[in-house]
């Protein structure tokens, strides 16, 4: 008998496990694959406010950024870097919209600095000459997501949590979960299974949204911030199943450049898409022409846990109050993980959550007009 069984050892499950263990709860984590085997190991490690309009997700992100800073010292070397984000555009027509978005975000507590072409170039000397302006977001950070998740799990283990790898949860009961070979009795079950979460508890419309990321050879400090094009915002908010590409380019402490991001609703299809690779390369060169001669050394794909209304799913299962959902963060799961874990732990111990959880309530999918799965 444990207090909490967390299903999924990705970043969200790890954060839930750590937040619960810190409150003295006994925790067991069940993971269907290996350590960082799922989406967490395929992410870029974005901790962003820049891509979120005012609303519940931005509130969650601001809480999470605060928690990242609080948690980081205990987690050791997780490559947390307050590098700042830079949204740029090559279209004069897009500038007013960027500027309006930044002003609205500022009201919600986001630091945003509008830049003209010269100011963009000052921050990113290698940027393409046709970039006409952008917005700088100093709060955006980056983390090495795999190390962050593993460090959270290790910290939870130090507090007595158990982590069972290659142990899938096949069924959830009011008093625990079943694995193929045994059952775990638990007061609470947390479904943090990410893109695989839809099948545990009440069926929820969470689906995998595939993305490819490319990694280049080390190039030193060619790219200083997380730089992305303004179309990224439209693509994140899109529901289209076909592939969308908007370029996100950033340097890492290892010297490599990460190039994202494609978004496709194609199920769990592991095949390497040469379309995606081509689109990523074209987008990256358009933002940073010097990348044309830089070589890609790796490409990998991951599956974002996509919820049709683009909001995380956090809160009790409509049919089983002892089951708490913590998924549906799509591409923002790394950034939103500490806040999610914190709010789940608060719910379990009966504290008033620091944020109103109503917008994230899993029951919203049952009351609203059903959204067809793609």
């Amino acid at each position, binding site marked *: 008998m444990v207090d909490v069984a967390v299903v999924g050892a990705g970043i969200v499950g790890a954060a839930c496990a750590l937040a619960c263990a810190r409150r003295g709860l006994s925790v067991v984590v069940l993971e269907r694959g*290996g*350590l*960082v*085997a799922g989406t967490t*190991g395929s992410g870029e490690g974005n901790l962003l406010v820049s891509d979120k309009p005012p609303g519940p997700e931005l509130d969650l992100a601001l809480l999470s950024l605060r928690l990242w800073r609080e948690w980081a010292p205990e987690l050791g070397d997780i490559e947390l870097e307050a590098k700042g984000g830079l949204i740029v555009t090559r279209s004069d027509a897009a500038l007013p919209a960027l500027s309006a978005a930044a002003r609205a975000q500022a009201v919600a507590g986001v630091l945003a600095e509008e830049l003209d072409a010269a100011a963009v170039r000052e921050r990113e000397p290698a940027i393409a000459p046709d970039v006409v302006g952008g917005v700088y977001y100093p709060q955006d950070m980056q983390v090495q997501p*795999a*190390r962050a998740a*593993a*460090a959270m*799990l*290790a910290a939870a*283990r130090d507090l007595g949590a158990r*982590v069972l*790898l290659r142990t899938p949860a096949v069924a959830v009961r009011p008093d625990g979960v079943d694995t193929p070979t045994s059952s775990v009795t638990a007061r609470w079950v947390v479904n943090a299974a990410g893109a695989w979460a839809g099948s545990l508890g009440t069926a929820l419309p969470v689906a995998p949204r595939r993305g490819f990321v*490319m990694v*280049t*050879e*080390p190039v030193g400090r060619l790219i200083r911030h997380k730089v992305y094009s303004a179309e990224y915002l439209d693509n994140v908010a899109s529901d289209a199943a076909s592939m969308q590409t908007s370029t996100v380019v950033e340097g890492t402490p*290892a010297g490599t450049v990460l190039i994202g991001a494609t978004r496709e609703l194609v199920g769990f299809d592991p095949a*390497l898409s*040469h*379309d995606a*690779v*081509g*689109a*990523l*390369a*074209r987008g*990256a*060169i358009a933002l940073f022409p010097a*990348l*044309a*001669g*830089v*070589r*890609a*050394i*790796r*490409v*990998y794909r991951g599956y974002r846990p996509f919820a049709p209304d683009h909001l995380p799913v956090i809160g009790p299962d409509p049919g089983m109050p002892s089951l708490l959902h913590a998924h549906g963060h799509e591409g923002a799961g790394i950034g939103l993980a500490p806040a999610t874990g914190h709010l789940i732990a608060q719910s379990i111990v009966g504290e008033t959550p620091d944020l109103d959880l109503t917008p994230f309530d899993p029951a919203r999918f049952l009351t609203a007009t059903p959204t067809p799965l793609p």
Partner: protein
Amino acid sequence: MVSWFCGMGVCFACAGPQSPRTCVPAPAGPVECPEPDVVVVGAGPGGLSAAVGAAGSGAAVVVVDLGARPGGQYLRAARHPLIERAEAHPRITFVQGHEVWAAGPGLRVGDRELRPRAVVLATGGYDRVVPFPGWDLPGVVTAGGAQALAKGQGVPIGRRVLVAGTGPFLLAVAASLREVGAEVVAVVEASRLSRWLRHPRAVVGSPGRLVEAARYLRGTAVWHGQRVTAVERYGDGLRALVSPKDRWVEVDAVCVGHGFTPSIELAVALGCDTRVDPRDGSLVVTVDDAQRSSVPGVLVAGEATGVGGAALAMAEGAIAGLAAAHHIGLIDDRALAAATASHRRTRARRLRFANALHAVYPAPDAVPPDGTVLCRCERVTVGRARADIVRYGIDDVRALKLLTRVGMGMCQGRMCGRTALALLRAETGQVPDPVAFARRPFAFPVPLRTLASLDGKGGHA
């Protein structure tokens, strides 16, 4: 300053002021070749034999090879009847100075995608080095790298050189070094000659090999049963600690090789089944009697199916080339059987000798001391990787790579993969899946401008 390590384009540390991989030619221009029936990857002994075999059966063959000229590592810069035959053949086109950078379903070469009806992978291998303290110092190179520099450019890696590791290849390297004026202090050979006594049939069956070995040996001291266990900077040069006598030897360069690692990433990318070769622990492609992999139309020859040397690769390549022609319907079952009969006998004989070599020169799989650099590209020591394995509970290769960065750099685990597997096994008590270290969707680094030409229709824009 130019540094040098592998000498054959796989370590990405053979770097000059401009670029890593000074050890291979600069990327050649556009790929110009006809649409082939058969693509052979690699123009070493195995690939050339395959090309001749397939073309001789009527196939239009394109050979893709990274070298400036056909021949591979073994026939490098030498005039050889096999090279001349292949170059003179009207149905063989060479695409030199290019590599296949991705496979599946087609083969990506430069800005082209080749979609042949059969593929022969004769991708060879590269020197395996078991890490030791100091193996990352300038002046420590692979045995093959030293030979490539000597045979390819006529340059000795140093004036006073130690050649160390295990296997008869070290003798050939010592000979190449002496030919370009280096003083080879000794060949430090981990094995003992007496191990040969257990394999008399192999010796009797391949007298030519013995003559070859004797020719290499002339004038070179061989210290059997000894190992280089550390190298340090010393004055302007280096000094190497030779165990078990623990004496320091002053040199300019140390050339190291512990057998070979097969290059199998293209086969893995195409979905071919693999296995661990029990003779030396290498991950190799599983093939049948006709060199067919588990994927129809993908034939594999040479080191990629199990390390065995050039002579064996030639026999396997000849069979693979004929099997490729058979796969696309140019020859029938009977013709295949007849044409391959003598090659099969040769293959069996050379395989026996290769097996004996593996038994006499066993590949060590030791985990080096904690202070040793494990991953050269990312500068991760054995100790740091071990600490992360313990702290995070790492028990598989994917987590090892993501959490420690071991194998995540330019060489993508080519240099460190085998030792990383040994470390993981030592710490977890379980045998990790080695294929994870051979999965490289980009078989080689590829410029973004090349990738940018990939369009939305599975071809190029």
